[in-house]
């Protein structure tokens, strides 16, 4: 190609690509009626949420907190007393893999803190709504153990889904949530009492997140990826680690 106008050549190239044949989805949507069916679960979901709110409102300490509802992409944070708090247990975040397997399993660059040594373990957790990567550092003098797990710091990375709330996090009355910033983007800092993570594996299906620790959690989203950093470190220390993430 001679000294090219690459942009013009790219536009020209677009129509030369062997795209799939056009599909009239409007006919499918009308004929098969998935949209009409879709409105029913929405109502059911609303009823379920209302029921949860009523339960939570029955707990006096949660009344004020339930008025607040914060959303990070892929994570929903609700205030209220969890129905039951599972006992602490060993960390089991999916399948233990090496870094190369983790890199190949997700379509985003896995970021690691520059201020820490490489993680001791890498885990993959595959769910219907996407694959999560967990980087785990063993407890040490610098990284106090969290919840008898042997883990000092756990960093989760996953692609947030606009449509499905990837997690529901039920926060007990003793947990505080502060708005903070990580590299200029809004983040939430959850500290205090234990809390429960729930996976959303379908429109109305949730399973308990086996990665639950009981540490402090920093949650933020950047470039469509949600990051969750859990440890027993202070907010300042957590922000320093979060701010050092790099490919």
């Amino acid at each position, binding site marked *: *190609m*001679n*000294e*090219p106008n*690459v*942009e013009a*050549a*790219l*536009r*020209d*190239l*677009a*129509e*030369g*690509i*062997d*795209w*799939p*044949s*056009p*599909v*009239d*989805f*409007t006919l*499918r*949507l*009308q004929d098969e009626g*998935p*949209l*009409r069916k*879709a*409105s029913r*679960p*929405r109502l059911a979901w609303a009823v379920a949420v209302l029921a949860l709110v009523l339960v939570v409102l029955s707990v006096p300490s949660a009344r004020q907190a339930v008025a607040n509802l914060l959303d990070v*992409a892929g994570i929903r944070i609700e205030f209220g007393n969890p129905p039951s708090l599972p006992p602490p247990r060993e960390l089991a975040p999916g399948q233990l893999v090496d870094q190369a397997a983790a890199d*190949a*399993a*997700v*379509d985003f*660059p896995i970021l690691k803190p520059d201020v820490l040594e490489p993680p001791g373990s890498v885990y993959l957790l595959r769910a*219907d*709504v*996407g*694959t999560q990567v967990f980087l785990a550092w063993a407890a040490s003098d610098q990284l106090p153990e969290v919840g008898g797990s042997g883990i000092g710091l756990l960093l989760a990375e996953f*692609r*947030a*889904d*606009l*449509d*499905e709330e990837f997690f529901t996090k039920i926060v007990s009355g003793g947990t505080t949530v502060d708005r903070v910033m990580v590299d200029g983007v809004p983040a939430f800092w959850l500290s205090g009492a234990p809390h429960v993570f729930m996976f959303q594996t379908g*429109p109305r299906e949730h399973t308990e997140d086996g990665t639950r620790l009981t540490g402090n959690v920093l949650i933020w989203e950047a*470039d*469509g990826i949600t990051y969750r950093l859990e440890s027993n470190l202070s907010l300042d220390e957590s922000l320093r680690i979060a701010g050092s993430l790099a490919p």
Partner: protein
Amino acid sequence: MNLSVEGRPLDESRLLEQARNGDVSAYTELVRAHQGVALRVAYLVLRDAAEAEDATQVALVKAFRALDRFRSGAEFRPWLLRIVRNEALNSRRGADRRAGLALRAASDPVLGDAAPSPETVVVQRDERRQLLEAVEGLPERLRDVIEFRYFLGLSEAETAQALGVAAGTVKSRSARAIERLRLSARILSDE
């Protein structure tokens, strides 16, 4: 296929409002305006026509269910395309190797009214194939931007929304990608 937004109904905001209230007909009108580019978004991720169709259809249903979370005054098309892309990404097996994009057999450009010579056609076809290969060889973050900006014809702002990145990021990635492609073209022309 015309993927421009010129044919988009002027009363899109009214259709959106009706759709948010559960009006299926209004939503299908919105889908009609954007289904072509939606399918191509899924195809760019999955590189398989049947899988792209499935992902697009699932995404269109999910988008309908998520309309109550659509921000009034926002652009509908990039919002919808982000959902389609996420659905396609979620249905893609992470470790799978993607098939490359192919050019249609009858896609040779026609320059002016005069029919190009057979030699010219061969050279142009080769240049287009090389450019497509160069795009395919870009890192994914740069390739995404090129695909959305030039293959799908989205604006910088729409691309930013659809990819979930800042507008400045789209601009800088686009500039880096164009520079790489220009360099590739120079190297090839020197060979």
